[in-house]
């Protein structure tokens, strides 16, 4: 058995750690690229959302590396993600790729299938070892998140352009290479030091923007055309509303660890604008936008893949939040035709607007 999985930001780092600890052979798909997208949009349904197409491309590229089993998450609606695996399997079958799918459905509806599925992957490993592996993976996710957060903080303040990205890449490599919890602790410490060593300019004026929207486009730099990096270069500190460990905690551990408080807080903040959950992270998008506005952020940027249902609802309500709290929001809709240059122009205009508004506020 050679296992593969879809890319989503740095998800491959913790997943690889889990599978390696269990001695399962892994074929990590090549980093998501133009080719992945081309394959996905050629064979995927025309109006399917971007993540489905990219996943499909990942699987095709992974099976070229010899993968024969796909491990991914499922869901029970109303967001389309819950039916991804079934559609992708049907498409791959018609294309002649013989991939086996192991889909982890949310525990509330399929609790009894879970142990059997874990056994299918883990083989003869003891349950103790499986728990250790998952814990190790989760710790890696936490380490990755810490690095991402510090990169978001440092990038707008860096003295030498590009130095943050360099440090960020090196830190992630260190975390990725750690093969035991002991090594990981050392790698985490080293990564922190590398990030701290990036030279910064404390007097640099920095805008603060909240980053909300659909989770895949938030986490995957290829899907959002490196939006965070572009914003950083424009002197904007980005606060992302969701990180990898939040997602793992929410979907795979069902909020057992901690941190579900953030989701709950966002959901309760979304009233009276959006009073019911609408699938995906639609309600959280509105709630987070409210929390950012209350927290004194200069603006909010929403991203989502074209035709994403929950986020469309959020987008149509988002202007009300801006009106009530006197903040601005900008929405980017991603699909295979979105161009980077157009996005950068809009980002520049948006940051100019926010900077001017901030200046005027300070002058008063």
């Amino acid at each position, binding site marked *: 058995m050679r296992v593969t999985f879809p890319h989503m930001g740095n998800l491959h780092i913790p997943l690889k750690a889990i599978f390696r600890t269990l001695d399962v052979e892994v074929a990590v798909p090549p980093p998501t690229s133009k080719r992945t997208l081309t394959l996905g949009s050629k064979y995927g349904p025309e*109006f399917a*959302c971007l993540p489905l197409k990219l996943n499909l491309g990942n699987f095709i590229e992974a099976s070229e590396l010899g993968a024969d089993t796909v491990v991914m998450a499922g869901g029970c609606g109303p967001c389309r993600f819950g*039916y991804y695996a079934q559609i992708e399997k049907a498409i791959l079958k018609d294309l002649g790729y013989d991939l086996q799918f192991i889909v982890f459905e949310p525990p509330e509806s399929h609790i009894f299938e879970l142990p059997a599925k874990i056994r299918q992957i883990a083989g003869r490993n003891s349950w103790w070892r499986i728990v250790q592996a998952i814990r190790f993976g989760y710790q890696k996710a936490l380490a990755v998140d810490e690095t991402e957060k510090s990169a978001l903080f440092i990038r707008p303040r860096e003295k030498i352009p590009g130095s943050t990205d360099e440090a960020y890449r090196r830190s992630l490599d260190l975390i990725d290479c750690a093969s035991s919890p002991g090594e990981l602790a050392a790698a985490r410490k080293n990564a922190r030091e590398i990030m701290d060593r990036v030279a910064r300019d404390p007097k640099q004026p920095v805008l603060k923007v909240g980053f909300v929207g659909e989770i895949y486009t938030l986490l995957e730099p290829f899907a959002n055309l490196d939006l965070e990096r572009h914003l950083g270069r424009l002197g904007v500190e980005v606060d992302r509303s969701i990180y990898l460990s939040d997602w793992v905690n929410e979907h795979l551990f069902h909020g057992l660890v901690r941190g579900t408080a953030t989701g709950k807080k966002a959901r309760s903040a979304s009233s009276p604008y959006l009073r*019911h959950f609408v699938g995906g992270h639609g309600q959280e998008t509105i709630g987070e936008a409210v929390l950012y506005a209350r927290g004194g952020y200069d603006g909010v940027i929403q991203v989502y893949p074209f*035709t994403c*249902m929950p986020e469309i*609802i959020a987008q149509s309500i988002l202007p009300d939040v801006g009106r009530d709290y006197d903040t601005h929001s900008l929405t980017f809709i991603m699909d295979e035709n979105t161009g980077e240059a157009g996005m950068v122009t809009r980002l520049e205009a948006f940051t100019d607007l926010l900077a001017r508004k901030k200046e005027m506020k300070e002058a008063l």
Partner: protein
Amino acid sequence: MPVKVGIPRALLYYYYYPLWKSFFEGLGARVVLSSPSTKKILTEGLKSAVDEICLPVKLTFGHVLDLADKADLIFLPRLISIKKKEYICPKFLGLPDMVRRLAGIPPLIDVNINRYKGNNEICLAAKEVGRLFTSNSFKIWRAYRNSLKVQKHYFRLLQLGLLPADALAVLENRVKNEPLPDPGEITVALLGHPYNIHDPFISMNIVGRLKTMGANVKTAENLPGKTVRSYAAGLPKKLFWTLGMRMMGAALHYLDRSDINGMIHVTAFGCGPDSMTGELIERRARASGMPFLNLTLDEHTGEAGVITRLEAFLDMVRWRMAGTSPCYPTYL
């Protein structure tokens, strides 16, 4: 003067109008419908809805605005789930929140209708709505029971092969005694959300056109729920969208039937659930050799283009039936 309750002629109006009407009338209210869809209604909807949303929801915005000065209250429930463990579509979940933002509309009756966990919730919803009109619990209960009876009758008429517009005419006793049209020589299955295919404006009267072109039309509404469900149960995973599941089950059923000569799938541009179910239906149709046409509708769709494609599709079906062109492609 009875309270006027406005019901937009959109979305699940095509399924539940008889129920809603009888319920509100049982409570002593008067039911006002928005006018049939027109270019003007759609344009109004387009102006106030966000660009990204699908055509039927934009049209709903227009219908709500049409009711603005006709009704005292607008019935726009939050249809979360109409069947256990299923949803309809995220857009139905957020609809009242999106519509509430419109300026100058009467208050909404935006009760939650949620059968995700079971059936009891629906009685609670009926009670909640009933309390707005009367404090007499018995009256609410009677109106609710009666409305269920009417609804059952309506569904039975649909299963007899009537289309929603005809079934409503029977219920309201306004059937014109016209001779039945000659049955067409071919039968096509028309699959799509009821609010797309049964709205003559949005669908450019696809049902009527197919009939004048000599085709009988069968839709998912003509099948009993049991049949649809048993066919949909053959899927690798249960579909969690009620309407998508209906279409899927109906498609699988019609693919099995020898009296169906072709299949037309109508979808609105950017419809989320259809992008998935449509893909599965198309793959199944291709595997079984059924002629298949996929029509995508949006606010720009030109009538002429739709007619040409329908004509070409029916020609293809006829040639295949006559056996004159076995090598003709089954796809347009």
